[in-house]
C-alpha cells in the first residue's frame, strides 16, 4: 500500500511540476492524489480539525492521533468540582468522528520528524504526512512553582486538566470541615482559559457559602488585572463576602507550596490551607516540543492566516499551544480556528491561495449557577498577527439586571451542548 502510494505521489509530483507554475509546489488534491493529513491531539482543536478536514474534502486521508479513547472536556468542570454537575456530562468518544471516515488511532505521538514529514507512535507505527496538524493543548509546568511537582498535585490538585484531578479537588472540598480555608494560586499570563480560574473561585465561594458557611476562600494571584474583572468583582461583592482576592500588587504572587505543612506562600505571607488548588504556569503540550515548534516562551509561533508553524514548515499548530496574538486560549477559539485551518489546508493541497480569515471568540463564565456573563471578540490577521476588530466585542454590560445574567448562564450551557455536538456528536 505504502509503496503504491509513494509511486503515485512521485508521479503526481512530476505531473504537477510540469502542469503548474503555482507558488505552492505540490497541489496534490488538484492532481487527484489522496494526501495524508495527521492530526495530533483530540481535544477541541484537534478533533474539530480532523472532522472538518474530512468534510472539507472527503478524499483526504485523515488520521487523528489521540491516546485517550474518551475525551474529558474542561469547560464546566468547575461545576463538577463544586458538585453541581456530573463528570459524565464532560465525557465524549470519537466514534462519530471515525464514522465520518477519520482514522482514529489511540496512541501517543512519541516523535515528530518535520523534515521527513513523519510521526512515530507509541507502538512504533510510523505515519507519513503531507500536512501535520498539531493540537497538543497545554501542559502544566512542574518546574515553575517551588514545591509544586507532579507528586504535589496529588495533595494540592491543579484540576486544570479534566479527569481524575477534577474529581480529586471535588472530594477534597466535600471532605473539608466547615471552617477550613481554601487557597487558590493563579499564575501570570499566558495560560489556558484564564477566565475559568475566576469562574472557579466564584463557584468555590458559592459552594462554601451554601455548604461550608464558616469557611473562606483566599485567591493568590500573580496578576493585578484579568478578563471580565469588573463583572467578577461586582458579583463577588454582591454574593461572596467569603472570597478574598489578593492581587500581585498586594503581595498575592504565589511563590511556593509545602504539601507536608499544607501551606501556600506568596510574596508577603504564608497561608495554611485545608484545601489548596494550585494552577501552575503552563506551556504548549509535549508534542510541540517533540516537533520543535515551540519557541523559548514554551508556546508555538504561527502564521495567522494558515496557522502554519513559523519554525517548522508543513506543521499547523492549533488550540492552546499556539501563540495567536490577541486571541484567548479558549475552547471556543480552538474550535473556530480549527475550522478555518481545515479549510486552509484543503486550499493549500489544491494549490489555491489561502483566504484571509476572520473569526469570533465568545467565552462565558459563571459567577453562580444562574449568574453568567461573557466576553466576545472578533479577530482578523493584521501585519502577521491576530488582532481584535476595533469597536466590536467586549464584555457583558456591567449594570445588567439579574435576568440578563440568568439568560447568559443558559446560553453558556447551550454553548457547551452545541460545540461538543459539532465536534463529537
Amino acid at each position: 500500500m505504502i509503496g503504491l502510494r509513494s509511486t503515485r505521489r512521485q508521479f503526481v509530483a512530476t505531473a504537477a511540476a510540469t502542469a503548474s507554475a503555482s507558488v505552492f509546489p505540490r497541489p496534490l488534491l488538484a492532481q487527484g492524489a489522496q494526501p495524508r493529513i495527521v492530526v495530533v491531539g483530540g481535544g477541541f482543536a484537534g478533533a474539530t480539525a480532523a472532522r472538518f478536514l474530512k468534510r472539507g474534502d472527503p478524499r483526504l486521508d485523515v488520521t487523528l492521533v489521540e491516546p485517550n479513547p474518551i475525551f474529558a472536556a474542561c469547560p464546566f468542570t468547575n461545576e463538577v468540582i463544586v458538585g453541581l454537575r456530573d463528570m459524565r456530562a464532560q465525557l465524549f468518544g470519537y466514534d462519530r468522528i471515525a464514522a465520518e471516515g477519520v482514522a482514529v488511532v489511540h496512541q501517543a505521538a512519541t516523535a515528530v520528524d518535520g523534515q521527513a514529514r513523519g510521526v512515530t507512535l507509541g507502538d512504533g507505527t510510523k505515519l507519513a504526512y503531507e500536512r501535520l496538524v498539531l493540537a497538543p493543548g497545554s501542559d502544566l509546568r512542574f518546574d515553575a512553582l517551588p514545591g509544586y511537582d507532579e507528586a504535589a498535585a496529588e495533595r494540592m490538585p491543579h484540576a486544570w486538566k479534566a479527569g481524575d484531578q477534577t474529581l480529586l479537588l471535588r472530594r477534597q472540598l466535600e471532605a473539608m470541615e466547615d471552617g477550613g480555608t481554601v487557597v487558590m494560586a493563579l499564575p501570570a499570563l499566558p495560560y489556558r482559559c484564564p477566565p475559568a480560574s475566576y469562574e472557579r473561585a466564584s463557584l468555590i465561594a458559592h459552594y462554601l457559602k451554601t455548604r461550608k458557611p464558616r469557611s473562606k476562600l483566599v485567591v493568590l494571584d500573580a496578576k493585578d488585572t484579568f478578563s471580565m474583572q469588573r463583572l467578577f468583582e461586582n458579583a463577588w461583592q454582591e454574593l461572596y463576602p467569603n472570597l478574598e482576592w489578593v492581587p500581585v500588587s498586594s503581595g498575592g504572587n504565589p511563590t511556593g507550596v509545602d504539601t507536608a505543612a499544607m501551606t501556600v506562600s506568596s510574596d508577603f505571607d504564608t497561608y495554611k490551607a485545608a484545601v489548596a488548588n494550585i494552577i501552575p504556569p503552563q506551556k504548549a503540550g509535549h508534542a510541540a516540543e517533540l516537533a520543535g515548534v515551540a519557541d523559548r516562551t514554551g508556546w508555538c509561533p504561527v502564521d495567522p492566516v494558515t496557522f502554519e508553524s513559523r519554525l517548522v514548515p508543513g506543521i499547523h499548530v492549533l488550540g492552546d499551544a499556539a501563540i495567536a496574538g490577541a486571541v484567548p486560549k479558549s475552547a471556543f477559539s480552538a474550535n473556530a480556528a480549527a475550522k478555518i485551518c481545515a479549510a486552509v489546508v484543503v486550499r493549500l493541497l489544491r494549490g489555491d491561495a489561502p483566504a484571509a480569515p476572520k473569526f469570533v471568540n465568545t467565552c462565558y463564565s459563571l459567577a453562580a449557577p444562574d449568574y453568567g456573563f461573557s466576553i466576545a471578540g472578533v479577530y482578523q490577521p493584521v501585519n502577521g498577527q491576530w488582532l481584535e476588530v476595533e469597536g466590536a466585542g467586549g464584555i457583558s454590560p456591567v449594570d445588567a439586571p439579574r435576568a440578563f445574567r440568568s439568560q447568559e448562564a443558559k446560553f453558556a450551557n447551550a454553548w457547551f451542548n452545541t460545540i461538543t455536538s459539532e465536534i463529537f456528536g
Partner: protein
Amino acid sequence: MKARHALVTAVMACAGVIQAVAAEEAPPGAASCTGCHAASVNVDTSVPRLAGQDASALVSAMQAFRGGQRPATVMDRIAKGFSDDEIKAIAAWFATQR
C-alpha cells in the same frame, strides 16, 4: 502523447469530483457561528439554528444587532465586527446549508 491525453482527462475528471463531493467553504467569519448556533437539529439549546434560514432575514437581524435596534446579550457585540458585505456573504452561505 496518448499518455498525456489520458492524464489531462483524469485531472479534469478529478476536478469534477472535487466540485461534487467537497463541502463548500464557509465565507470569512461564518465558521465561528456554529460554536453557538447548532448545525445539528439534535442539540438541546434555545439559540436559533442559522442553517437553512432566509438570507435576507439573517442580514436584517445582523444589521439590527449591529445598530442596537434588536435586543441582545452578545450578538450586538459580535455584529459590530462585520461589514455589510461580510454579513451578506455569511447569510447567503447559511441559507444554502441544511
